[in-house]
């Protein structure tokens, strides 16, 4: 029964290419997080705007991001958007898809964080002559981002894991894509994907532990 011979050497020889893929994976994740945070701040402002149509935009975004599969969102970015004559490259599709997902989940995290900041904070800012936007920008938002820091590292882990879905829209330069291409050449499926799994594990653990370390060092108040 156990006559399968593992050939780790053959797979390990491909490690440099896989590490190149890991760099692309991290690039996608970092970019999608940076864009996702910026969009989530914008969506949060829309939610607080008091304007019904703007609040509806934010709510729709958040609920679609949270209640449909990430893979569906990536398909929409690739195949769905193409229906409007807008063709996104595999890289752009995966970036747009993950960013959309990040922004939705992060907005929900920000909503929770805002609950922990008393109204009197914004009021104190206003009493010093700040406009509503200034009070949000300088007083509420920094506190919101700090409270959300650990949830943001969780979302970063999700972003890393989601990059593996890029293969469904033709992405082949990220870690999963590279691994799949190598698999088609060598058929060392188990070995190659096991190595990819270890690389993913190291990346996500580094983010989780690094995030905790930064949080305990940085936020002294």
């Amino acid at each position: 029964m156990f006559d399968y011979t593992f050939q780790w050497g053959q797979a390990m020889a491909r490690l440099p290419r896989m590490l190149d893929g890991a760099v692309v994976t991290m690039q996608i994740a970092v970019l999608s997080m940076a864009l996702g945070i910026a969009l989530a701040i914008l969506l949060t402002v829309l939610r607080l705007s008091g304007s019904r149509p703007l609040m509806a935009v934010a709510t729709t975004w958040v609920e679609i991001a949270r209640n449909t599969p990430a893979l569906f969102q990536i398909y929409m970015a690739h195949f769905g958007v193409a229906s409007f004559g807008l063709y996104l490259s595999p890289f752009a599709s995966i970036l747009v898809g993950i960013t959309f997902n990040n922004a939705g989940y992060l907005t929900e995290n920000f909503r929770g964080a805002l609950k922990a900041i008393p109204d009197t904070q914004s009021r104190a800012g206003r009493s010093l002559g700040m406009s509503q936007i200034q009070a949000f920008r300088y007083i509420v938002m920094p506190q919101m981002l700090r409270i959300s820091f650990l949830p943001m590292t969780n979302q970063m882990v999700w972003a890393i894991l989601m990059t593996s879905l890029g293969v469904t829209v033709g992405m082949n330069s990220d870690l999963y894509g590279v691994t799949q291409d190598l698999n088609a050449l060598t058929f060392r499926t188990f070995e190659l994907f096991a190595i990819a799994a270890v690389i993913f594990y190291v990346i996500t653990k580094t983010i989780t532990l690094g995030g905790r370390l930064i949080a305990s060092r940085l936020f002294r108040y």
Partner: protein
Amino acid sequence: MIDIQNVRKSFGDLEVLKGIDLTVERGEVVTVIGGSGSGKSTLLTCINGLEPINGGKITIDGTEVHARSTDLNKLRTKVGIVFQQFNAFPHLTVMENVTLAPRKVLGMGRAEAEAIAEKQLRHVGLADKLSTYPSRLSGGQQQRMAIARALAMSPGYMLFDEVTSALDPQLVGEVLETLKMLAEEGMTMILVTHEMSFARDVSDRVAFFHKGVMAEIGAPDQLFGAPRHPETQAFLSKVR
């Protein structure tokens, strides 16, 4: 000059200010006393434009606070307010707490704002806490920082809303000392307080609020020594 004319204010069905008239001249210290729910704190937030009013008008140096054309943000730089809760900005150091508004609202440079902040913080006795975060400060220190933060805007008027009510008893004294110092320097102030002997000590006039009405106003010796209104008498006999 702060001129309050027939101001009415309701929260839903509850009318908390039922036509208040009060004029505060420059350099004057007016203390407002009264039971809880008498509307005294609400009046302060209305003066600062943090709450809209339902009738009457409030004018500060000729600018009507609740007029549509009034730039409230600009007006608020002239009228400082300190609240019962200290409202320290927890993510900023003491220095940053005080310099934030001068820099972002008044557009001051960092060096200028820090010079002013340092002066105000020394004034309230926090010169050694500049790079400390508020969570490391006592309640009394946080409240003094809040006072310095308001003073750094160089306001013409200061409003104090029960600023010692949330403090442990042993910390009340240091904050009252700071207020007294400001009064002696000639700052125009309206204070809402429960500290009766302090009110008697620093005020030019004392107003007694009862159920949304200013029942009585007068010099401290008169109001505390020979109150005319029966509700004032009842209130003072209870708090003594």
